[in-house]
């Protein structure tokens, strides 16, 4: 039996984020939210562990009422319980970790699984911070997870070699993308997920001024946007432009 808490992040769909041409800031206001890529792999891995060792998968998501579609996706993959923590809207890793740790402490678990870094903010800080706050060992960048008795063994897949590390549970495991291929949930599970209740817990906003966001701007692009329509004339022209550019 392995009880797993899996942490899900929602993020704006990066394919649909446009950059404001004047301020160079990303326009994320009306962009639909989607499940962060590694979080989906994390849910898949948690469910695979459940299928292999039995136990329960609890998914935690920082979001709001609109996030239920993402939680339903986790249900469809196989999560048993889902908690949306509503009220935290910051993007500050230290605070995020605190909010999550507070909730995790309330739930009996053997493993906490999460992505090693999110696809949108890419800080990679949450696993380490959670480890410190919860006082549980961190096994990072897992490409494979195995459980024997009360011990968890993780294989980190590196470029040239694989490293195996293990620790007693409970522990925190951050995963890398290669760990699995998220499944396409069967329709019956998608339908059942739609009917499953989601717990939403309101929290008061956390205020901390440890790190503040100064600016978030895309570098100005230097694209010349030259179009060469005529194939025959175009190629020598392209070569000419490239040569000039290299000088």
């Amino acid at each position, binding site marked *: 039996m392995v009880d797993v808490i899996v942490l899900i992040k929602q993020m704006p769909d990066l394919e649909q984020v446009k950059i404001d041409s004047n301020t160079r800031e990303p326009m994320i206001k009306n962009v639909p939210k989607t499940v962060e890529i590694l979080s989906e792999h994390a849910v898949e891995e948690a469910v695979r562990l459940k299928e292999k060792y039995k136990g329960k998968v609890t998914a935690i998501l920082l979001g709001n009422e609109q996030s239920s579609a993402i939680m339903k996706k986790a249900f469809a993959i196989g999560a048993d319980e889902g908690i949306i923590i509503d009220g935290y809207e910051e993007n500050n890793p230290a605070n995020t970790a605190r909010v999550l740790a507070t909730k995790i402490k309330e739930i009996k678990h053997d493993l906490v699984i999460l992505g090693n870094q999110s696809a949108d903010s890419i800080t990679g800080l949450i696993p380490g911070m959670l480890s410190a706050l919860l006082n549980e060992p961190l096994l990072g960048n897992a490409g494979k997870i195995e459980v024997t008795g009360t011990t968890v063994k993780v294989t980190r897949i590196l470029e040239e070699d694989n490293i195996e590390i293990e620790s007693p549970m409970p522990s925190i495991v951050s995963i890398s993308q290669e760990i699995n291929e998220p499944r*396409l949930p069967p329709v019956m599970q998608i339908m059942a997920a739609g009917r499953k209740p989601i717990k939403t817990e309101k929290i008061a906003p956390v205020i901390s001024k440890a790190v503040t966001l100064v600016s978030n701007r895309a570098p100005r692009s230097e694209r010349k946007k030259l179009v060469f329509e005529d194939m025959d004339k175009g190629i020598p022209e392209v070569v000419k432009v490239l040569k000039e550019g290299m000088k």
Partner: protein
Amino acid sequence: MNLVSVLVLAGILIAVFAFFYKLYEILWDAIKIPLKKPRMKLDLGRRIYILIRNVFLQGKLFKDPFAGIMHALMFWGFIVFGAYSIDFFYVTIFAHQLFSPGILSDIIFFTVNIFAGIVIADVIYAAVRRWGLKIKRYQGFNGFEAAFILVLIGLLMLTYFVMSVLDMQGLLAGYTFVVRSGAPHYLEPISYALASIIPKAPSSYVYYIFWSAFWIHALDFMVFLIYIPRSKHLHLFAAPFNVLFSTGTQARPLPIDFEKETRFGATDIRDFTWKDYFDFYSCTECGRCTDNCPANMTGKTLSPRDIIWDIRETVMAQGKEYRKNRDNPDEVFKTVIGDPILEKDLWSCTTCMACVEQCPVMIDHVPKIIDMRRSLVLNQGKAPKESLDLFRNIESYASPYAIDPSTRGDWAENLDVVNLSKNPDANYDVLYWVGCVASYDRRNQDIAKSVTKILKKAGVNFAILGSMEKCTGDPARRTGNEYLADMMIKQNVETFKEKKIHKVITACPHCFNSLKNEYKEYGVELEVYHHSEYINRLISDKKISVKALTSDSSEKYTYHDSCYLGRYNKIYDAPREIIGSFTENFEEMEKNKSKALCCGAGGGRLWMQETEGTMVSHKRIEMADKINASTVVTACPYCMTMLDDARKTTNREDKMNIQDLSEVIAKRLE
């Protein structure tokens, strides 16, 4: 009644009982096992037409002319021989003829005599095809069954001739208590000719010769009757009904009600309809389907014939078990996917319908393959990895591409096109449905631009939906993800209703087929034109004029038929007429119109890797090269993508161009 009459009567009763008992069993299976019902409309006119065309006139068989003629003669021979046999047994049992002498009996006995000779020739020809010429499409056929049947038919005809020749020689006078005799010469010309060549047998031998021929003939017939429903000759009974019951919607898989149903797609034999069972019963293993299958042709193991035959064998075996053990259906009915039908074969199908088009007994292979894909996708979440990405993209971006849907109409920027998502109150007469590929794919955007140019030149007041247009659901549906397809269709139908859209043009045959034939079931009636039909009409109505190709031009055009335009919607002429409007430098490729070879992209295959065997698109490009075509004209963005890619990867860039119909016309507008 004499002893012979009694024995023959008993034998015939046993044979008839055995025949009908087996029919009862398989009909019981077809009625009791399936959990789903086919789409059935009365449609009497169409049914009578196809019954006459495809059964009595053997219409679809002539797609393979030699085998077709042989089979048609065999079929007509069987019909007259059936009438003859009824009379034969009637005489034996009741000692007088059923058909009293007259015009009817004259016709029967004359035609039987002629056909008996033809059928013997047929039997020899059929044997030569199988064991001499070893025709490829028979590969893996059941040799014993074929040989046994041919021997039965051959013997039946030979013994008929023996008795008939004896009669012509006037030697049957003593046997009139069991056979008809004294036929005039002109009624049985072949026998008469034989009788004059073959010397009369000594009277002491006649007894043995006659009785051997008589008993072999009678027993042969009885064995045949018993054997028919237990072999591939079941098609004698099943195929005419299969043609009669054909749904007329072969290309369309059954809809799924996700609120009510719990078993999705076809997993075991319970998930087919009774009409599907007739399909299985009608199969004769002739192999025309597999012979024309693009996947099979390019070295993949998919064989539509084997899929049908494997399920038939499963129905026969599990049906028998179920009749004995009706309390535990879950134990009896085991999945057909995996064993005997390989998953990878299901994914190799391009849904091109060449198999369905070729099948003489009107079996619907493709919807069954899609239904088994559905079982994998909807029940188990199993699909090739690329298809999972396809589903994710359609779900998130309403197209097969992971591209921001708000940019869908960007190709039309600066082209002065009415975009309903930016200008919702604009007036327009026709909606131009662009489709995902022409909206997002760089090469295919040229099709959208060309269509725009033509419509504008013709003064058509049209609009596009821009970012409100979403994938029609076709790639998802054909890949087995009906859930996703259903979602997309509902969203689009909502848009059609809200915008009160009625008339639609599209340059994508996949969108065309969906919108025209499949959206009806979601409650929206659209008047849909493929751009080939529409442009052809603009030319013939003189709304646009097209510059003719100069007579000294060395250009040679050919046209590649899109499956979803051709076989799915029977549009073969419009594209050819468009090309004909500006040039006569046109030649057909080896496989064209209803026999056209697929490009390899249908059935969601555009978004899958083709790793087994060789590429279908390469085979097609080679056919175009064989006739030295300089421009291959397509009418489908999928075909464009596949053939343009094949042209490049097979190093034919210098000598061959792939152009959409709209592009060739847009360039020649005057």
